[in-house]
């Protein structure tokens, strides 16, 4: 595949922007968590794009192409942990409020 690295990074940026949009705009906790997953995936894609970029034969020795997949694995791990804790929080919140709408949770509002 001879797609330039820029295009992979542009795709990652678009996905990250959509994740930020969902995180800021939506009120449903589950969709907010899904948006966070989307952002983590965009970060993963940019890690892998960088790894692929530095593995090209013309750039040999300038960067470390093996760091990308390692970091991607750690990001996936953190995403799994985040999803587990986030969904446990959603369950606890639902028990408390009988709702998953974020605008009903305003106890900390001054």
């Amino acid at each position, binding site marked *: *595949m001879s*797609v330039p690295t820029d295009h992979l990074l542009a*795709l990652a940026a678009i996905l990250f922007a959509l994740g930020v949009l969902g995180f800021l705009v939506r009120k449903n906790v589950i969709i907010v968590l899904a948006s966070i997953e989307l952002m983590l995936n965009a970060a993963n894609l940019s890690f892998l794009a960088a790894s692929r970029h530095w593995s090209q*034969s013309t750039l040999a020795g300038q960067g470390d192409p093996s760091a990308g*997949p390692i970091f991607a694995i750690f990001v*996936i791990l953190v995403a799994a942990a985040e*999803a587990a804790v986030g969904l446990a929080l959603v369950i*606890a919140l639902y*028990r408390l409020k009988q709702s998953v709408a974020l605008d009903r949770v305003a106890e900390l509002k001054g």
Partner: protein
Amino acid sequence: MAEALFYLLGAAAVAFAIGVVRARMPLFSILNLLGSFFCLAGIYLLAGFPFLAATQLLVYAGAIMVLFLFVIMLLNLGDEAELERHAGLSLSGRRLFVAGTSAALLGLVGLAAADATTVFAADTLPEGRALDDLSMLARLLFSRYMLPFEAASLLLLATMVAVIVLAKRERQRTTPSSASGPLTAARQEPVESGAPR
């Protein structure tokens, strides 16, 4: 061929991501997220990361998405007032559309897998190998990245304990008294509001 597939999968990933943000019901949002993950797995495969594509499918699509769907089903979400505002295709048309896009998506990922063999032979990759060679990753993980690896295991342990504490606390308090705890009351409420459907 691989380029066309990349742009197709990228466009599909963006379309699914828009679906995640726009979906009225959390269930559709999560299903769109699943589609986006599938497209990204195809892109990883095309870019020369077959192991990470498999991990993406196993961990994200297999484990995390099932966790999301499990919580949605457990809390009986989705039949909120938002459902009535969901305009657009009829139910059967929507089902057809979803089935069609899923089939097309599976075909795309399959094409990416078939194309990956030719991609690995391309001269952009050093000696045509995958960029996430497993033996290389394992060696790095247990030498240079040993400390992050151990920290990750600690994180997973802490997560496990935290999730058990968070999800179990209320039930311990209610089980000795009676069956009319907050959870049972919560479970009955959405059923009533969901009756018009």
